[in-house]
């Protein structure tokens, strides 16, 4: 059974049809790329999966469980992590604290136990810090733990965001344009990193990406969106030969 099933999802903003009967699946363990011209609905779909938007029609099932009935903050606990197209780190927190807060959905305890510093709290904090440091090390960010998560190079900040998403120990990781704004060598390294974390953490990855060489090199499967609909689906090679896809990208008549 597919890990993520997007089934007949439709979403309109006013009169604009952002997603139109969209349907595709992501199999467990694969790296699936979602591509398409600007405005095709890629990020909109991400926002539906992470419950920022609620589509008017359809269903999104994760591991057989309907996501659209969950409140937004339950999606992380269900096993879905994500990064954002524009950075969404917490600049007031250090790099390590950003990763520690990323594990929020796995933790328990509220304001009272924190304020009274009940016995379990200090132990939990130490464990979180240790796990966070390990994650930072995996992403070669361990030297930055104590720095505020701002005023660092863009590529570094994007990796911190990936580390934060991994801290919740997701089974599905949604990456929204991870390569945007990165230098050529950074993109190459990013491809390796995505594969590495997929293998190490037994993840399924769904990524939105415009950087075609990256999509070609790491995706097991590509889903092409245009005007809120699925245009094509298949291996990267097959999709790039598809005349419909070429037309959508280049705007040519068929």
């Amino acid at each position, binding site marked *: 059974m597919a890990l993520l099933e997007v089934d007949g999802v439709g979403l309109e903003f006013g009169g604009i049809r952002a997603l139109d009967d969209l349907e595709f699946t992501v199999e467990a363990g694969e790296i699936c790329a979602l591509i398409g011209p600007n405005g095709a609905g890629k990020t909109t779909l991400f926002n539906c999966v992470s419950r920022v938007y609620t589509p008017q029609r359809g269903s999104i099932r994760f591991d057989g469980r309907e996501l659209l009935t969950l409140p937004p903050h339950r999606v992380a606990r269900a096993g879905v992590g994500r990064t954002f197209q524009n950075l*969404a780190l917490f600049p007031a927190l250090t790099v390590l604290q950003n990763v520690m807060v990323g594990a929020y959905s796995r933790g328990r305890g509220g*304001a009272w136990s*924190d304020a009274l510093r009940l016995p379990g709290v200090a132990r939990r904090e130490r464990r979180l810090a240790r796990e966070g440091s390990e994650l930072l090390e995996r992403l070669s960010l361990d030297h930055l733990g104590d720095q505020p998560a701002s005023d660092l*190079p863009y590529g570094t900040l994007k990796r911190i965001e990936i580390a934060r998403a991994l801290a919740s120990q997701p089974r599905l990781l949604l990456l929204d344009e991870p390569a945007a704004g990165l230098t050529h060598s950074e993109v190459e390294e990013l491809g390796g990193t995505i594969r590495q974390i997929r293998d190490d953490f037994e993840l399924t990855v769904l990524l939105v990406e415009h950087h075609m060489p990256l999509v070609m090199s790491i995706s097991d499967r590509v889903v092409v969106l245009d005007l809120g609909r699925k245009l094509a689906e298949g291996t990267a090679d097959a999709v790039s030969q598809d005349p419909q896809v070429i037309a959508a990208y280049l705007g040519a008549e068929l």
Partner: protein
Amino acid sequence: MRGRALGIGTRAGAALLTVGVLAWLPQYYGATDTALFAKAIYIAIAALGLNLLTGYNGQVSIGHGAFFGFGAYATAILMNDHGWDFLATLPVVAVASFVVGAAVGFPALRVKGLYLALITLGLAALFPDLVTKYVHGTGGTTLVQPPLPTSPGWAQGFAPNDDQWRYYLALTIGIVMFILAWNLVRGRFGRALLAVRDHDAAASTIGIDLARIKVGSFAISALYAGIAGSVGVMVTGLANAGRVETFQLSINFLVAVVIGGTATVLGPVVGAWTFVFLERATQDLFPDQALLSPAIFGVALILLLFALPDGIVGGARRTGRFARRKLQARRAPRAPDFPSPIREDRQ
């Protein structure tokens, strides 16, 4: 929430020294000054709570004078009409203020920023009317003057006067509230507060229930303001909720948070003491000119914020970081005379 500037030992030493000085103050100073110190303490308690809401969670309130008044009246009425002991009123005030704060926090979920500030301002405007309607105090006014706690026999050695005893009660409550706030911000809840303030969509994505954190911080800050009100009654001897006082207190808490340093635990405490003493110091400069003192006080606050835009504690931290970097640069080996033309960026 940045890297630790000082070691554990230095911090513990500084904390002990501070508590020592605070404990010594009423031994040396007279009743008038002691009352002033006690005022700084209850303003600090309210500011600690407001800082959790405004500094850490980014929800601006200019209505916390209402929660302060609520706590003050609860304590005063329980003591005056029902013969309760002062300390016994505190848990009741804490729970009741928390609940009232949550009740105000829920509608506040719908609004942000300036609009939220306006709604809380409405709260400060509404509260005195409620008091006028429901409180029947001394001689038909809204003033309630409960009997104040007196120094018990066992405390005669260090607090022979009642005002000293009340100061020590206020100080103890203040220290407890400070430690609770300090624990709160350095854990899971504190990180969630800042995360919601910095980027609510991302905070929601990592599993933080925005409503819970926002309403929770409202309720906790109201609890702090309520307890501050109780302590205020004990220090000043009366509960009062004039329109001007309620509004002024709300602003005072906010000023204490801002001049001390938002989103730092120590900030509101330093800010409250600075505020109270600046106000006192500018009060009697020109006895014949009633309007000049507040003006000078205002100018002093503006100058303070001009010099230290991120507050006293924020400014001190910045200076500390700067000094540390300078020191490290001096200790580090000198850079080679011919730097390599190719920079290796570790990415």
